[in-house]
């Protein structure tokens, strides 16, 4: 790989990292997992003047479930650390289901959850998952920390609302309103391919009634598709075949797919509808079995 010439710094604290970003006035890039940034530099689509490598900031390397069920994922938590992770699987089934479908095993050992959300790729798995879960990002800049709700963080294709001198240090997923269930399905032509369509579903159940429902889509629009409004039709109701069918149709309607070599817009909508149905039906069957 022969990228353009760039400077490199490896700070030991977030404060130092923020100072470096501030000093380079928008010409610096944060390197965490590097699984999107480095390929772009290799192709010379990106040519940052300065790389601020945060991998030496050990404080950012964690994921934890707090007593109340809130989940915190630090900026250096790799995708693979969310795979086969019993605590995460219990707290957020959607993340556990999506983790093994992120890119390929090589990418998952390096790439980070928070980095992927920041990258805001319309086909990214974590931006969709965070959207369904209604989480927020903690950004740290020269003036300290602020929380940015995910809906205000990922605002378009490859666009987030971090200031040039801010670092996303943590992703936070709120505690469930009951028993949290969920799943993630993705159609890809091959492991590591961008999704033809992905569906993230998360449901909080109180007894057999839905207390929270979040659905978001990847690959079916120029941005991460927030289908939470369509999903909210389930709140206060039971999961039934009828409710499932109507939500699946409503979610498919808010997708914004385009026809390309992965398939026609109609085909992608069909996949979204099928996946929403399959996930919700699966959750229904599991809950019936448990009962």
């Amino acid at each position, binding site marked *: 790989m*022969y990228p*353009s*010439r760039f400077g490199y710094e490896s700070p030991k604290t977030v404060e130092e990292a923020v100072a470096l970003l501030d000093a380079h006035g928008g010409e610096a890039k944060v390197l965490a997992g590097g699984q999107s940034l480095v390929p772009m530099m290799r*192709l*010379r689509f990106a040519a940052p003047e300065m790389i601020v490598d945060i991998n030496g900031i050990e404080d950012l390397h964690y994921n934890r479930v707090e007593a109340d069920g809130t989940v915190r994922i630090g900026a250096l938590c790799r995708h693979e650390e969310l795979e086969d992770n019993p605590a995460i699987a219990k707290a957020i089934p959607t993340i556990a289901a999506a983790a093994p479908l992120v890119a*390929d095993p090589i990418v998952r050992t390096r790439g980070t959850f928070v980095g992927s959300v920041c990258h805001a790729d319309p086909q990214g798995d974590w931006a969709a998952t965070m959207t369904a879960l209604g989480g927020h990002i903690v950004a740290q800049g020269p003036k300290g920390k602020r929380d940015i709700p995910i809906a205000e963080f990922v605002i378009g294709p490859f666009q987030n609302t971090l200031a040039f001198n801010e670092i996303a240090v943590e992703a936070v997923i709120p505690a469930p309103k009951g028993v949290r269930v969920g799943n993630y399905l993705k*159609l890809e*032509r*091959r*492991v*590591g*391919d*961008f999704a*033809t369509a992905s569906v993230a579903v998360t449901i909080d159940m109180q007894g057999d009634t839905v207390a929270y429902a979040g659905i978001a889509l990847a690959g079916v629009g120029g941005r991460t598709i927030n289908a939470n409004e369509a999903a909210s039709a389930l709140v206060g109701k039971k999961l039934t075949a009828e409710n499932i069918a109507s939500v699946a149709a409503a979610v498919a309607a808010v997708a914004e797919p385009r026809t390309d*070599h*992965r*398939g*026609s817009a109609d*085909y992608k909508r*069909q*996949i979204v509808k*099928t996946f929403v149905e399959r996930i919700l039906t699966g959750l229904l069957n599991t809950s019936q079995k448990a009962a």
Partner: protein
Amino acid sequence: MALDEIKIGGLGASRRRVEDNRFIRGKGNYVDDIVLPGMLHMELLRSPVAHARIKSIDVSKAYDIPGVRLVLTGEMMAARNLAWMPTLSYDTQAVLATDKVRFQGQEVAAVIADDPYIAKDACQAIVVEYEQLPVIVNPFQAMESGSEVIRDDKENQPGNKVFDWEIGDKAATDKAFAEADVISKMELHYPRSHPSPMETCGSIADFNRATGKLTVYMTSQAPHIVRAAVAMVAELPEHMIRIVSPDLGGGFGNKVPIYPGYVISILASILTEVPVKWIEDKTGNLISTGFGRDVYLQGEMALRKDGKMLGMRMKTISDHGAFYADAQPSKFKIGLMHSAFAAYDLPAAHLESVGYYTNKAPGGVAYRCSFRVTEAMFFQERMVHAAANDLGMDQAEFRRINLVKDDMFPYRTAFGFLTDSGQYGKCLDIGMKAIGYDTYKAEQAEARSRGKLLGIGISTMTEPLGAGNSREYDILGIKMFDSAELRVHMTGKAILRTGAMNQGQGHQTTWAQIVAHELGIPADDVTVEEGDTDTAPFGMGTYASRSTPVAGAAVAMVARKIRAKARKIAAHLLEVSEEDIEWELGRFYVRSNKERGVTIQDCALAAYSNMPDGMEPGLENNAYYDPPNLTWPFAAYFVKVEVDAETGVWDVLKVVAVDDCGVRINPMVVEGQIMGGLTEAYAMASMQYQTYDDEGNCIGSNYMDYLLPTAWETPGFELHEVVTPCPHHPIGAKGVGECATVAGPAAFVNAVVDALGHLGVRNIDMPMMPNRVYEALTTGKDISGMPPVKMGD
């Protein structure tokens, strides 16, 4: 006592590959591993557009960058008569563009600098002004009257047609159609694919002004042809050119042609008088180098209602890109397309082929295809599938009726090939049993009742491997023989060199096994070398599954020459006449007293220390082998799939491959070849293709767009073996390297089409991506990868 052949690593021994020891330890020696003192680095600037006139090239800003030593443009090449070079198909190809660029990725300028980073920076600093021209991205646009003439550099090239060619007996074929009860039709596109070897192309040219010698380390499957070509193009004397192909990281036909980068690096070294290294990047490899397929095929089959094939009409329209650079036997314009239907007792056939220039990368005969046999057999097996359905006959039964029977050999095919051996029916039987064919109809019906779509696809074929014989096969006049040179040292160890060129086939391992078989020298005692034109005998290289049929035969023949000399030495040592000597593996003995004998090692020592009076010392020889015929392996492949009706996703439930490639030198290596080929067949069928948008942008210029299956998607394979020795090959072997790539894709497509057959679907063009399959199963219509233009009559 004779040696145990398996113990010494002879024929039939699944000996571990010698070369893997260094490859898996990271100790291979690829072109990019070679570092020469004072070496400079070259980077190519490629055209971002598919068709344009070059108005100006300004290289001044490139020279402003420290470390830039030389910038070459087409104009500078032209001044040395090197702007254009001949291709392997009697056409010409631009080295660096002068007048126009004719495909996206074409070489426009080259920067030679102190390191590759600087060279890349400097390429970005070159300013080229393009005036865009209309772009032609398929042969149907190319054939339209009034369309832009791509090759206006050529005289006598009024349009975009490259060739118009036919073969077969038209009158006999017309007669067969007149007598037919049923006529079945098939029309499809075999999309363009790229071999994408793990290692890209590259070279290090090292011209030494003091000695006048040019050494080029390069990624070539055919280094000896390159030496001849460089001698002719660069006007350097052939004895002052040394081409060295070190370890190759895959080839698959991608490394047969001679690419502009090689030629430019040579000129750069001559001008700078230091070694110049060029290593292509992945995108450069994918968008500019030899591709495979991109052929539209159409045909119809005349049938009797009892299932007998009567005749076949075929037409191909092929897309050759901007330069006709196909690496193939020169006599045949569309490779060995006319090998189609060679496995079937087909009385009459006719093929018409037309090739066109387009604004796409040149090439056409790469990717493990045995000179377009891939397309021929794919079409054949899709046609056979459709014909069986049109007759309402079972797929296996229809094949059984029409496959050539064991007692019909030698069999002259409708297109004139002579097949010589095989047990086609036996292979079919083994495959049917292994896939569970007798219960599958019931299984399919049961699955359909649950909304599941189940299908089995069959592909049976024989293909011509091992070009050639010198009567029929040459490339630019050079006959397609091959060679081996064997030198047995005094301690009985040996070095073998051949004119072939290993690129993953395992020659280092298998050639030594042939020597072990012929001479009883343990395979571990034989060094194998290839690829250095100063030391290896002249040969045509490795592609089209020709190594074992041709160079492998030469290895056996040279070993037999050595054995003949050793026999005379043995007679001398045993003090008997040569007529009284018998041979068993590794040992000569006196016929009347088996206990009295000498080993091949004894003879080797004597060749240097105690030779008979009047005998030339030493124990070495060479052999050039001109095969009497091609070899004809047979393959019967079965694939079972299940299609998800809601998404179009299809899962492979089972793959059964029955291969008869004659005598297997190393069964493990053969199985590896078959598994690799089946993986590529699955790839073609499911995801791997290169396409272009209307502006001629290559969709497939990186591995996010050009999909190669991983171990995750690739199904498992169940392999079976039948052995019908080749009657003319010295050890009875047939080619096998490409059988699975050739016969495999149709088995996958036939399976998916079978699963959807009850819905009225006859064809889904590859790759059968889920969206295509979904469209087929919801509409009941065929899915074509063709542009919205018909092929006409």
